[in-house]
């Protein structure tokens, strides 16, 4: 596998131009803005149990993380 560096200086195993390396298009604003309320949703947790964001966090603050290939 050839490793190539992208225009921002990052190395990754996928070739340049591969959809896995796509960035946010210029001018695109991802998701809701600060001040808006996150919509409620239900997703399975790591054990497959459904979690509802607003119901299951109680009155606590939340950190909602979308991630992939978690070299973090």
């Amino acid at each position, binding site marked *: 596998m050839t490793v190539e560096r992208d225009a*921002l200086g*990052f190395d990754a195993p996928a070739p340049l131009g591969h959809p896995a390396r796509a*960035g946010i298009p210029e001018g695109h604003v991802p998701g809701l803005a600060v001040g808006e309320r996150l919509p409620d949703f239900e997703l399975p947790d790591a054990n497959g149990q459904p979690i509802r964001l607003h119901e299951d966090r109680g009155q606590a603050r939340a*950190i909602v993380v*979308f991630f992939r290939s978690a*070299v973090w």
Partner: protein
Amino acid sequence: MSRDDAMLYGIPFPGVFVTDENGQITAKFFHDTYKKRDSPEILIDAALGRVTLDEGTAQVEAGDTEVKITAAIRGGKGSIRQGVIRHLIVRFELAEGLHIYGEPVPEGMVATQITVDGPPGFTVMDAIQPPTRKLHVAGADLEVWSGTVDLIVPFYATGELASETRPLDMNEAPIEVKIRYQACTDEACLLPRTETLSFSLPLDVIDVPALSLHMGHGQREGNYNSMPAMRRLLFRKARAYPPGFFKYLFKTLKLSLASRKRAQQKNRR
């Protein structure tokens, strides 16, 4: 990601929302590339509305009893990884009655300035500053901070310094922080000062999964085999939309061949 890339459509672009008790978004962390990610410690600090000087990590001090300066790295125990954002926190503790300046300042006065230098690939982002207080002195409008002030300089490494796909060139990166400031009371000013602080930050070796795609790049090969998960994903995607699966394979093959060709041309030069 385009819907044409149906094979990968639905895989999220990394990003983080932080909410308050009512579910309202108080902070949002998205970057221009999936390679940039904020350290978990920074996300927790954002949720708790605090700035933490991590005592367990690299920390240096300067200044005197009037102006005490502490600089520390927040996130990853002060280590560096490709694309992972850490914070350099510079905390000023100003004696009663003293203030320092934010931009802009009238001619002859010195605004607080932090410059951070490191090896090639060490990349500094825009500073995060708390709001200033307005002060009107001798006909001039000034932006000032007093008390305890935390100025934050986010930074990350690109592949040149800390690649995750080739062996690292060094174990630690030397970082130099220059802090220029002028402290004043409402009546008089101390002379401007410049403090220079040094850090040596360890570079992290990445655990890569046991996938042919990742292996053999010189990073630490993890003891977890992600092949079963990858096989399940490919099977699910191929079953859901067979043309998309073959389109994906064709595209990947085409791009890989082009990538190999570029590498060969580079080697010939």
